[in-house]
């Protein structure tokens, strides 16, 4: 039984990681008042850059940097549209998603001629699993051993980074000057403005952080979890991350639990698929595939209550209305 649990939880960690990066990314953006349905596109753009650069340089770290760079670039487009030009943030997000979907394949095809894929990466051009200290020696200790060695140990560095990013985000948002201003600007940009702080620059910084974190998510997909970029490989994770963010009521620690929950539901669904349930018998696989989404809706209806977004989110900041 323990090994089944560990198996599911292990899978949960891996599945939650990209969601968590993207979710925290969204947190920075939306806390600053910029609604972001472009997480998907930024992630995808980052994944492509990671795949391409990791292949060229044979170095995952440079791949990660490239992912961050590209993702931040997309974030800046989003920012330029919604901060500087006061455009519709949702439309900008939709545009980013389309742009990333199209450009990654277009450039991928032009550079590698593999149908938008990047060439397959060798083991050591990727982020590979890390064995935590003593994992082997305590492997056989009952209970603790498997949990440490099989569940906690043996992930790649980005998985750990994602979970380190949670307290870090919490600290930045709730314990630093930047965080205070970030929270303020999402609630009341006028208050920030009249306090002598530039609303635009603050929001740009939030959007840039959002891009950087999406870069991590993308790099994880392409050069940690997989061995290269594949067209559309973000496969809707940006939207799930967005859902997780709302679920988490825009709070970092909640975000972690929300992402873990989504990852867990997914992992369980993977495990349950094709197994017959006692008393019910064989259940169509589609049911299990839909299960995480159904459970999300049930949880949302039952336990979460109203999620109230930062008050100014989605509204471009204008002082003088004409």
């Amino acid at each position, binding site marked *: 039984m323990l090994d089944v649990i560990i198996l599911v939880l292990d899978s949960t960690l891996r599945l939650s990681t*990209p969601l968590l990066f993207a979710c925290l990314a969204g947190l920075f953006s939306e806390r600053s008042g910029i609604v972001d349905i472009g997480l998907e596109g930024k992630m995808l753009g980052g994944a492509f850059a990671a795949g391409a650069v990791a292949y060229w340089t044979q170095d995952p770290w440079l791949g990660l940097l490239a992912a961050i760079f590209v993702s931040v670039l997309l974030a800046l487009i989003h920012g330029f549209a919604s901060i500087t030009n006061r455009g519709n943030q949702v439309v900008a997000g939709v545009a980013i998603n389309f742009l990333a979907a199209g450009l990654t394949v277009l450039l991928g095809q032009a550079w590698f001629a593999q149908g938008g*894929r990047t060439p397959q990466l060798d083991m050591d051009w990727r982020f590979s699993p890390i064995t935590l200290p003593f994992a082997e020696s305590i492997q056989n200790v009952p209970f603790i051993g498997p949990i440490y060695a099989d569940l906690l140990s043996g992930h790649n560095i980005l998985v750990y980074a994602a979970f380190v990013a949670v307290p870090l985000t919490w600290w930045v948002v709730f314990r630093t000057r930047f965080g205070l201003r970030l929270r303020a600007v999402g609630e009341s940009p006028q208050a920030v403005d009249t306090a002598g702080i530039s609303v635009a620059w603050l929001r740009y910084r939030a959007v840039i952080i959002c891009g950087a974190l999406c870069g991590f998510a993308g790099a994880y997909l392409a050069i940690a979890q997989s061995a290269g970029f594949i067209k559309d490989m973000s496969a809707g994770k940006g939207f799930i991350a967005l859902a997780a963010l709302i679920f988490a009521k825009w709070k970092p620690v909640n975000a972690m639990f929300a992402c873990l929950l989504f990852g867990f539901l997914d992992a369980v669904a*993977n495990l349950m698929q094709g197994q017959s349930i006692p008393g019910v018998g064989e259940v169509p*696989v*589609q049911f299990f595939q839909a299960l995480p989404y159904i459970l999300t809706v049930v949880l949302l209806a039952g336990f979460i209550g109203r999620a109230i977004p930062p008050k100014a989110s989605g509204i471009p900041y204008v002082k003088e209305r004409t």
Partner: protein
Amino acid sequence: ETIKPAVVYDFGGRNDRSFNEAAFNGAQEFKERTGINYRDFEIQNPSQREQALRNFARRGMDPIITIGFAQAAALEKVAKEFPDTRFAIVDSVVDLPNVRSIVFREEQGSYLVGMLAAMASETDTISFVGGMDIPLIRKFSCGYKQGAKAVNPDIEIIENMTGTTGAAWTDPVKGGELARSQFARDSDVVFHAAGATGMGVLQAAADEGKLGIGVDSNQNHLHPGQILTSMVKAVDVAVDATLTDAQEGNWSTGVQVMGLAENGVSWALDDNNADLINDEMKAAVEAAKQDIVSGKVEVHDFMVDNTCPF
């Protein structure tokens, strides 16, 4: 004779790591060999199927090959409008005098790799990752199971499908995750029929020191020594042959069934996996192949009755 061939791919597109890509390779091969250029088109939504076929037909392209079962309805319409144009469809049957229908016996090839998987497995547990739960994929999985059970009736076979949206074919992360969850449940050989999602399946197998089985084209080279074999579905050969037939005046219509006998499906053996296949395995598979070709062994086709008894 110079011909003006055209190819219409389905949703997955020219480079889907699956049958569309195989078709592309076939056309490419033909082009390199004969120097005859071809045109192609990747559809983006259902309405473009008809449109693309018609556009090619109008421009006098001939023959026109369409890839994928989903094109059948569109082809049926357009082929009637252009009775003098030669058409071919891969993976479905369109019963018209100017259409060649090419269907593959995926279950036969899958049967063979299923046998190999069962023989290679040390845990007596093997697995399958499909893209979407549609009849075509069931066809693969059913043959695979039958083959495995033929070797070891008690073998455990885990079966997973990736998703229900188009992303099911392009989600290597999910594919890898499904494979890992299968490995954790003791599977040590995994066969995928999931397009680009399968990249993640094979990667996971390589990462975890298990064996993967490729599909459609020979994927053994992707992780040398870690891919047991590939169930090759010779769409490329079929496309090349169809074009060649048209060029050389050997065009024929009707249904072309591409099974083991016709080398339409096969299992791949090359330098990359030579060490994984011992003589005993090789002998067993070759024997089974003969039995299937001769009709001594009947491989169940899921499509016949929509069930898989295994």
